[in-house]
């Protein structure tokens, strides 16, 4: 068993250091360059490109979101103003129509009053004249009666 652990005294053994060492070192260095060209550089480029892509898209998305929020607030403001304007318009229209209605009503009432007054005045005048005529006729008739009675006597 101890012959396993020959320390390089003779050929063989566990600790037999020879030209394998530098050749293996050269091999590993070569492997480093090959892997760098085949693996580390291309994969690193892809991964970092993706990371950059994600970062920029995220920033863009954030920017767009901010823009959308700003636009939304803007539109909300506009909508509010439009609502207010509409309300005012409606109120004004209502007031206008009310005023028109009142005016029309007032003129109509005044006209009606005036025509009623005129009619009454005319009626009065006609009654007056009719009464006058009646009175004259009655007096004439009375005179006639008196004259006839007196003449018969």
């Amino acid at each position, binding site marked *: 068993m101890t012959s396993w652990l020959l320390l390089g005294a003779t050929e063989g053994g566990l600790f037999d250091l020879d030209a394998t060492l530098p050749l293996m070192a050269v*091999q*590993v260095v070569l*492997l*480093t360059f090959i*892997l760098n060209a085949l*693996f*580390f550089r291309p994969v*690193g480029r*892809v*991964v970092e490109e993706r990371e950059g892509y994600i970062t920029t898209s995220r920033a863009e998305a954030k920017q767009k979101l901010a823009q959308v929020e700003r636009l939304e607030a803007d539109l909300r403001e506009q909508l509010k103003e439009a609502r207010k304007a509409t309300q005012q318009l409606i109120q004004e229209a209502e007031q206008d129509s009310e005023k028109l209605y009142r005016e029309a009503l007032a003129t109509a009432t005044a006209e009606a009053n005036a025509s009623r007054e005129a009619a009454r005045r005319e009626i009065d005048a006609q009654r007056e004249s009719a009464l006058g005529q009646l009175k004259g006729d009655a007096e004439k008739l009375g005179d006639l009666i008196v004259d006839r009675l007196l003449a018969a006597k």
Partner: protein
Amino acid sequence: MGFLPLALPFAELEVGQHLYWQLGNLKIHGQVFLSSWVVIGALLAFVLVGSRKMERDPRGMQNLLEFLWDYIRDLAREQIGEKAYRDWLPFIGTLFLFIFVCNWGGALVPWKLIHLPEGELGAPTADINTTVALALLVSLAYFYAGLSRKGFRYFEYYVEPTPIMLPFKIIEDFTKPLSLSFRLFGNILADELVVAVLAFLVPLLVPLPAMFLGLFTSAIQALIFATLAGNYIGEAVHEEHH
């Protein structure tokens, strides 16, 4: 190892035996390179397939790759700091992935089916050469990181907060690679040995819990190695605020 008569073909213990390849007058451990090429091939195939058609909306394997990348980035960023982690992300990530696939490859691939004339295939990280190589790379990396970022002001680190710290900090430069390499080596080798011994004694079912534990420690060791490497680099590039 014929000291037990009941040696099953898939549960043989061979420790400290290597398949030697001769390279000029240098010797290297063939089995370590063979298995490391297999796991590196698997890793590269996975990465190639996963990163073939990458899109902004990830699909299929791309998700897994991105998850891994994200995990490694968090690890590196946490250890090294926001300013310098980008330069060291590939290094930390390669350490993590390489150690991870080595450890799991050693545990999950049925290496025993492939017969070598000498030695056996297994996790490349169960060989001291691999772990020392990785640990020395980490040492070089943090020296380079500190010197390139701060110039010679890097050595202020050795006398902060007081000059009394100087010998300890110098000793640390040696203990860091030592502990890094031996921690990884010891854990992976011990795991392989435990599984091998259990499989050798009771081939069925009994080694399973040890295997699961091995998978767990393998992942943890990869994470520890990468985290400590990042931590050392982070210490080296850290700017004191006076």
